[in-house]
């Protein structure tokens, strides 16, 4: 009874951490709440990651193939945003232009085929072997193309394995390498063959389509959406410029022919992002904002409910004379813990779940950091609402 009153430290704002003690006391509830917030964060990561993934997939070829200029069919924005077909010998004409260091032929089309009893789908992409050594392929296993014919490098997502033999067109192709993460803008895995093989496959297909169309009584011939609607055509010629060349002069020189269009790499990127994928991008971003709005509301409600549940204790703290800082830090810390705990849970779930998704979900550090800042901001705003409610509590409410 006569224990002496201990000294005040004078400076100390040290106090038993009420926020953490409460969390420990209600651990299960807190963990469930965090998991709930975490799932919302996972969904947000997924939306943003899907957006990034679609862009990365769409731009993959344009970026990786390393062409300075794309020479395509005249009047077309090909070969990605629109179809394009140019003569298979256009490369020789382009090669002669002053300032051009190297040329490659490019062709790409979708193909369904049977392999090992399964029906598979891939985007056949021609590599101008040996002008193009295929060094830009993201090989995960095996090797690149080394023979002029009947070899293939498939992306893992196609579903083939090394040494599988697939019949494309009239010929068998042996899979010699597997790439990882190389898909087209629709997410179909790429299947690389030499450009001559690709042309043969396309030719065969065109022939079949013509026959089918004739059988159906359609005299106008093949109707196809492929970039190579006719025989012995390719989609584009890729140009690597001399380091000393003036790109504008080269473009102008080729354009003067009148029968082709010339697009720079930036033009292709712009076409893909702002024309071809425009609606999809806006759609995903709109969904992302809806999701962030939902997250804001849910997190705010959680923090607010937590505050309401503690009004009695807050009133008690005021009654025994606690400073506002004690109450503010209790609410603020809990909101931040729920925010950051939820975020970590969300990132964890995302890393577990998204690799199993069929399309790329790209999680960049910058996006995660921005999302973390957003979540903390939401938690902070929610805490401010909770705190403003707590400040209106009267100490005498302890008694009610």
């Amino acid at each position: 009874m006569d224990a002496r009153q201990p000294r005040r430290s004078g400076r100390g704002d040290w106090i038993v951490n009420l926020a953490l003690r409460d969390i420990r006391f209600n651990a299960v509830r807190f963990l469930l709440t965090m998991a709930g917030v975490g799932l919302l964060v996972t969904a947000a990561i997924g939306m943003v990651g899907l957006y990034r993934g679609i862009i990365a997939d769409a731009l993959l070829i344009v970026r990786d193939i390393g062409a300075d200029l794309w020479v395509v069919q005249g009047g077309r924005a090909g070969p990605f945003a629109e179809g394009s077909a140019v003569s298979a010998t256009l490369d020789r004409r382009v090669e002669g232009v002053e300032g051009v260091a190297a040329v490659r032929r490019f062709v790409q089309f979708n193909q369904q085929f049977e392999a090992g009893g399964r029906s598979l789908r891939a985007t056949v992409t021609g590599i101008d072997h040996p002008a193009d050594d295929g060094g830009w392929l993201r090989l995960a296993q095996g090797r690149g193309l080394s023979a002029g014919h009947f070899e293939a490098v498939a992306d893992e997502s196609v579903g083939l394995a090394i040494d599988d033999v697939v019949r494309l067109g009239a010929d068998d192709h042996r899979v010699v390498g597997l790439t990882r993460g190389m898909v087209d803008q629709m997410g179909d895995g790429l299947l690389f063959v030499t450009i001559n093989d690709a042309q043969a496959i396309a030719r065969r297909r065109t022939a079949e389509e013509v026959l089918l169309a004739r059988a159906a009584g359609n005299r106008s011939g093949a109707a196809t959406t492929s970039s190579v609607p006719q025989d012995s055509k390719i989609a584009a010629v890729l140009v690597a410029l001399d380091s000393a060349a003036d790109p504008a002069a080269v473009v102008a020189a080729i354009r003067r022919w009148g029968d082709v269009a010339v697009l720079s790499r930036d033009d292709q990127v712009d076409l893909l992002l702002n024309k071809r994928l425009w609606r999809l991008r806006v759609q995903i971003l709109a969904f992302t904002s809806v999701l962030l709005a939902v997250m804001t509301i849910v997190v705010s409600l959680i923090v607010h409910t937590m505050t309401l549940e503690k009004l009695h204790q807050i009133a008690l703290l005021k009654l025994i004379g606690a400073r506002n800082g004690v109450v503010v830090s209790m609410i603020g810390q809990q909101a931040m813990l729920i925010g950051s705990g939820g975020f970590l849970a969300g990132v964890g779930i995302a890393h577990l779940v998204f690799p199993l998704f069929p399309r790329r979900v790209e999680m960049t550090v910058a996006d995660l950091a921005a999302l973390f800042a957003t979540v903390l901001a939401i938690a902070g705003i929610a805490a401010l609402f909770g705190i403003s409610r707590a400040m209106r509590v009267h100490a005498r409410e302890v008694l009610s």
Partner: protein
Amino acid sequence: MTRPPVLGVDGAVKHYDGGGVVRALDGVSFELHAGELLGIMGPSGSGKSTLLLIAGLLEPPTAGEVRIGGQRVSWPGADLDGLREVRRRRIGFVFQKPNLIPFLNATENVALALEIDDVPPGPARRHAGGLLRALGLAHRASSLPARLSGGEQQRVAVARALANDPPLILADEPTAALDSVRGRQVIALFRRIADERGAGIAVVTHDPRALDLFDRTIELSDGKLVGASTGIGGLVLQRGLSEGDVERR
């Protein structure tokens, strides 16, 4: 020269607006001295709790004033939020419900009252432990409130009220939720605190069984002081108010 009273309430009036004015307190004055245990009695609705709220700086009076340690601290329109430090250091509260923080154990609940007053946690806990021991709760020091009986919880609440060694303790029906034996124990505890620490303690109580422990009681009715008594060693003498008070009624 005598020391000023621990608590002085002067002409306290409290009106509540709630569809017609409720005169909860109608000009109540009293003083409480160091070492004194005062009982506040009266029928339900007579204004006892209101008086304690005003004395405890939780409500401002509509008229009148409150002095603590001779210093005028509350008056109509006073900023009670700014009086937290006075509440923290100079007043201990005990209510009918113990109002313990459910996620802190007994020691931490008591230490909290010190920690919010900048006492470092180590010394605060030691002091809290000492208080709990003094109140016979050493074996319950690390129990959460939910594990304590009603009487034990109330004693923890008393320990919390004592933690800052306040000169003034205000208790509103602290025994109402307890059986008569436990109830008397709590009042006896207040008696001891008043004697040993010299605190001035005002206790609102309905329970006549522990009246012998009080130094004196005052009685309220309809917001007015209607009686006072002095208890001396178990003998309770009833006496009327001054003629002036009676006249006013």
